[in-house]
């Protein structure tokens, strides 16, 4: 570029009147302003992108939530329990609540299922007489042990940790189970 300009100085008066020193000065200033611009953009981008990805960086340990005394769950029944999720901010309100299906298999043996269908996450309901979990969205159906009975779900209902401590049945909070490409 520079060479071309110096070959035809008469076409561009600004270049024609400039000294060689001024050329490199302009070049330097251009680079400085580009660099400063990049720095400014980066300085703004850090907090904006930070706000975007912050939920990924927070470490949320499993929290145990009391869901009731063991004798509230007769053996052989499946019951909906509601509890608070792992990280309730004050303004979450009722959206901080979450639910699980608890099945009292045998004496003292509990299983907790996610309410989310593994197809697309809709809430499955337990039909006690039929002993089936049914999803209202695309007709996914599961047996009482959470295995798929019919419909499109690619895998069994996920299970949550469950234990008995301090005389209470406790459920371990967990993320919404997200079905991956390789699962289906």
């Amino acid at each position: 570029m520079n060479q071309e300009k110096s070959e035809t100085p008469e076409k561009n008066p600004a270049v024609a009147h400039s000294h060689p020193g001024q050329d490199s000065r302009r070049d330097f200033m251009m680079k400085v302003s580009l660099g400063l611009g990049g720095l400014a953009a980066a300085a703004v981008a850090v907090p904006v992108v930070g706000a975007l990805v912050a939920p990924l960086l927070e470490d949320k340990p499993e929290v145990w939530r009391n869901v009731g005394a063991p004798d509230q769950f007769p053996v052989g029944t499946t019951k909906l329990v509601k509890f608070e999720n792992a990280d309730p901010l004050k303004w979450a309100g009722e959206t901080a609540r979450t639910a699980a299906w608890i099945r009292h298999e045998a004496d003292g043996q509990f299983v907790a299922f996610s309410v989310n269908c593994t197809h697309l996450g809709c809430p499955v309901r337990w039909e006690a007489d039929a002993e089936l979990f049914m999803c209202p969205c695309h007709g996914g159906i599961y047996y009482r042990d959470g295995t798929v009975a019919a419909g499109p779900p690619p895998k069994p209902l996920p299970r949550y940790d469950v234990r008995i401590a301090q005389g209470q049945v406790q459920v371990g909070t967990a993320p919404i189970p997200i079905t991956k490409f390789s699962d289906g």
Partner: protein
Amino acid sequence: MKTFFRKIGAWLEDRTGIMAAITPILNHLVPPGAKWAYVFGSATLFCFILQVVTGIGLALLYQPSSDAAYQSLKFITDQAMFGRVLRGIHFFGASGMIIFVGVHMIRVYIMAAYKYPREMNWITGVFLLFLTIIMGFTGQLLRWDSNGVWSSVVAAQNLGRIPLIGTTLARLLLGGDTIGAQSLSRFFAYHVFLFPALIFGLIGLHLFLVIRNGISEPPKAGRPVDPKTYRKWYEAMLKREGVPFWPDAAWRDAMFGALVIIAIVGLAITFGPPALTQPPDPSLIKTTPAPDWYMLPIFALFALVPPRTESYLIFFGPVLAVGALLALPFLSGTGERSPIRRPWAVFGVVCVVIFVGALLVAGEIAPWSPRFDTKPVTEFVSYHNPQLERGAELFYKKGCQYCHMIRGEGGLKGPDLSLIGRTWTPDQLDVQIVNGKGGMPAYGGSLKQDELRAIVAFLSVQK
């Protein structure tokens, strides 16, 4: 008085030059045949402006936080002055935008207006199509009732099927591991700031390209587009017979746009906005999430494709659709434009319209879902035989009737069993119920022997 205003006008024009800048655009020549078929793009634009204006109105009243949004929606719908109409207009405006984007796109494709030199018009249009759909979907989530909450879970699940980064994207969408305090503000930011900003920019580019490349003339069989000569020919044609956009062509856009807006407002006053379902409490699971009508075809597709192919469909489907639409002007960027000479293109459009329409109807009926609200057989048939009576009762209680129609009441997922006793023996019924098969759960593990006998007896007398 008149001269006073004229003086102000002259002063403004002298200091701003706005009219000098706009007049050439208003007066630009358009082909004389650009008549009623050409109003759908501007109708989409009118709907978009309507959405911006009503969106601002709603944002004045709406609380974009997970705990308060539902209350504010109730307030808007039931108490705020004209709030119900405002929500209604925003809803029907969204529907209108989706419809006119579709019609505009079909018109452009049928008339092959995407060919040289208007490839970039098409490409910016494809992006606008997807942004419009995204806006529709994110808007539906902002109706933060149980439908909105569960739609956001479904959206996260869909993202989750993207290989490698799916789960991360799903978490980003929800603003954490679960629905909670950060979920709604994210959707609000997407729906109100991010995507509208992109749409504004792209509409600007789209309109600039319309002016720069000129409105396509109505196609004529036997007059193919040749990049070597087209521009010259188009310029000459415009000079010869073009008409100024304002007012010769613009009045149609203005009239149609006004009628569309009046129709939308009329619909909003007559039908009102979609009703709110239960509060956004994720532990209230007795809900039947269903998307707004324009997402129903996709909702139906997920129910109807073989489950094994679903991950591929969810991921590759949109990728292929975008890829095919973007590739179109490069695959057939020149040549014949007339639909008479492009029968396969017309056939393709008809197929797509029928396909999407059929999925829409299927999504409306949702025959794959259990009908939880079906009335038990015992309400309208009574048997003297106690075993039959019990069978009828169990047929409902065990969930059979959720999926099987009997005597006009029941679900559509399984076959109608009203006449099953004519063709199936008790043994066959027995085996089917115990083992299940073909989309039916096996009841062997949950039915007692006498329950099974009662159901089989009940089904055997259905003839």
